[in-house]
């Protein structure tokens, strides 16, 4: 019989396997919203479970694959091989290799159940409540205590439990911030809750993790953890205020453009008549017969203070959007120029705006801090 494997494959294969497994360590490096780079206790717990599983899996893998590879080399048929023993089975051996894995699985099950009840615990102490409302295809965040609504960025204080109510009146989405918590689906008609805490200030990428239609890939958000609780309260107060008045002609022109063209879908508190921005979407937006108070697009009252825009896919790079300057790198301008190019299929279908109009709108919206 032809020998299909050459001498020296064994060490090669072993190296290959170790290399492959070690790449997993890369997952702990920065750059990505990595589940193995936790910044809060929930994600930390979930990540510890992973490392334990990896060790167990690696041992089993090396053991079983090792046995396989050993047999392949050792028991190759050679011209002088004696006839193989015609074993049909062995009850003792069968019992051993049923009972031992059962014990191991039992241990893992214990860890599983303990872990799942742990991460489901109700938070104690100071809690911030937020409603995360999954639209197609952007995230709205409503704070019921301070009655403010914002989009794309979920601002929270550090070292405080955040209780996120998950609301949808359309399709199923999923709320996932890999560095802070595992995901929970946002199911229309259900009142799911996801609780997490961030240990330190920073920005953490959030992702929609349930296929929700054509732009599911472009439905991100970020969790902005302020430096301390006071800064968070300051932010809340700023968000509660009505929109800033325009302070230049260009901005005034932008405000007029907004009133002429954008009010069907977007609200600005203090500018759009009868719009308060204080309504609880879980009340306003759930009745299929009533549409009032429930806008299609994000609230823009404090647009200028947001770090992410366009359903979480574009950075709000204010420094590239200075009035009078070159707006070719300004993301907001790019968005206004052609929203369908950035996010084909989304609901913002607008006619072509002139460059001057875009400049005015950019100036006005970025001034709404």
């Amino acid at each position, binding site marked *: 019989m032809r020998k299909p*494997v050459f001498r020296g494959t064994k060490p090669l294969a072993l190296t290959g396997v170790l290399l492959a497994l070690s790449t997993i360590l890369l997952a702990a490096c920065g*750059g990505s919203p990595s589940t193995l780079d936790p910044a809060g206790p929930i994600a930390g717990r979930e990540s510890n479970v992973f490392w334990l599983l990896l060790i167990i899996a690696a041992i089993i893998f090396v053991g079983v694959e090792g046995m396989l590879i050993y047999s392949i080399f050792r028991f190759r048929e050679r011209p002088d091989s004696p006839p193989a023993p015609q074993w049909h089975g062995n009850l003792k051996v069968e019992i051993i290799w049923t009972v031992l894995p059962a014990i191991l699985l039992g241990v893992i099950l214990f*860890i599983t159940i303990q872990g799942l009840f742990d991460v489901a615990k109700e938070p104690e102490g100071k809690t911030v409540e937020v409603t995360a409302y999954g639209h197609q295809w952007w995230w709205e965040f409503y704070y019921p205590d301070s009655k403010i609504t914002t989009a794309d960025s979920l601002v929270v204080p550090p070292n405080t439990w955040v209780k996120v109510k998950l609301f949808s*009146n359309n399709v199923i989405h999923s709320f996932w911030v890999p560095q802070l918590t595992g995901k929970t689906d946002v199911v229309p*008609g*259900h009142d799911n809750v996801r609780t997490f805490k961030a240990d330190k200030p920073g920005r953490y990428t959030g992702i929609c993790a349930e296929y929700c239609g054509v732009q599911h*890939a472009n439905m991100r958000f970020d969790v902005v953890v302020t430096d301390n609780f006071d800064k968070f309260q300051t932010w809340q107060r700023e968000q509660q205020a009505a929109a800033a008045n325009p302070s230049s002609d260009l901005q005034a022109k932008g405000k007029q453009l907004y009133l002429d063209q954008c009010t069907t879908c977007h609200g600005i508190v203090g500018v759009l008549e009868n719009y308060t921005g204080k309504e609880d979407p879980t009340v306003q937006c759930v009745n299929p017969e009533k549409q009032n108070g429930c806008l299609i697009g994000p609230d823009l009252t404090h647009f200028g203070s947001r770090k992410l825009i366009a359903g979480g896919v574009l950075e709000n790079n204010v420094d590239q959007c200075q009035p009078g300057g070159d707006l070719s790198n300004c993301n907001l301008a790019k968005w206004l120029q052609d929203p369908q190019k950035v996010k084909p299929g989304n609901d913002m279908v607008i006619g072509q705006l002139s460059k001057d109009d875009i400049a005015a709108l950019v100036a006005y919206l970025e001034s709404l801090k």
Partner: protein
Amino acid sequence: MAVRTVGDGTTTVVREKPFSETFIGEWLTTTDHKKIGLMYMVTAFFFFLVGGMEALLIRAQLALPNGQVLDPETFNQMFTMHGTTMIFLFVMPMMSGFGNYVVPLMIGARDMAFPRMNAFGYWVLLFGGVFIELSFLFHSAPNGGWFMYAPLSLTKDACGVHAYKCTPGMNADFWILGTTMLGISSITGSLNFVVTMLKMRAPGMSINRMPLFCWMILVMSFLLLFALPSLTAASALLLLDRHFGTHFYGFAYGGDPVLWQHLFWSFGHPEVYILILPAFGMVSEILPVFSRKPIFGYTFIAWSGVAIGFLSFTVWAHHMFAVGLPPIAQAFFASSTSLIALPTAVKIFNWLATIFKGNLRFRAPMLFALGFVGMFLIGGLNGAALAVVPFDYQVTDSYFVVSHIHYVLFGGSVLAIFGGIFYWFPKMTGRMMNEKLAQLQFWVLMIGLNLAFFPMHLLGLLGMPRRVYTYPANMGWNELNLLSTIGAFLVGVGVMIFLINLVHSLKKGEKAPSDPWDAFTLEWDTASPPKKYNFLTIPIVRSRRPFYDKKNPEIADWKSVIH
């Protein structure tokens, strides 16, 4: 025209050939399980190529960030059809095809219990498959993912006033119709398998002596019979919601989207065991022959298959850990999922014991069977990890799951299918396949599949969700995606090598003897290819390896062991 001599040889009758004796007619009207098996296999392989093209398009789009190969709507149709095609139109019919061809031969029967219903099952599959692929012509291929979650799959009006992009078009209807037809095909096939195996085994072949491949097809058939009704019910309710104004899944009027998930996964989980059990069976036939030993622990392998069958109905909500079920329910499903890992582990140990101290012959079928064991282990390990609920919260709906499903489906079912093809090709066609090309294909596939699917573990851990048509350049996912795409194209090369081997061997392959591998079971005790009636005289069986007994009467199994 046929000429027949009648009576004492002095009269000659000349008549027109009936339709059923023309080349086309023979295939259109056949009820011969071997021909039907071949038709299933050829059709399934064609759909494998279709699904494979869809996979390559997906990977081409995801090779680089902000890819421009496919627009988002087309991409969403691609990944939906890739899953639907591969599961319903490739693996299931291919396993059916093998079962159809091999099972009657293995049990010493002349045909299946219901030959015409057997043919019916095949034709329904063909029509259903063509129908669902036709949807591309209308640019309305199903686009809701292969498991079509509600409310996304509902029509615009049924899924809520503020939902603008549910499924207004016919996409979901094609899916419902197609899968219903495929369900009918599978149900008729399963009934046939069950009755055939329970009633038509050769004399002396107690169920305790039936080959393991037949056992696995039997369990698979029971699973299909009990699981498909869930899918039929779920689809029927979806159809009613979409076209007849009901609100089973529509939350706004009192329905519940999670109902779809429960119904679907009550089918969907047994379904994945339907896809893998025949593969277990094939490997359990190939390993002993190429180790020159009987299978180790026949009883344990057979009963663990049955155990998996029963347990598969108790685990479905492990696909729904992130949906918000109460923790106590999740604990139940975590427990049942852990339990089902046990029979699978037992099988792997028994296969290892089979090759231990054997005389291993590394011909093509053996390579693929060993590859199966190696790759399925990885799929089993990352699957067991997914059962650990707190970890699952992080990686469900991410590329980690995509890695798991492809290790068990490609590294598992597909490798076993190739093993089965190489093993039984000589029997089915009377020719040998080219061994060198087969070995080359094996290594290309092994490298390709690991390159394609291993990086996906990391992508999931790094936060990449499933079913995204593109990703931004600053997430740190770029290199891994590119690696995965290269692996996928390498897999494509492997499949090309196989096609070359297939075409060449059909035309110019070495003539195959009736027993090229010195095998143990009854199908090898026939000509290659077998006569229309399989066996002129039905054999009498005295052990689990009747053909081995016949060839080695001195050391026959029935002399040394009582089974």
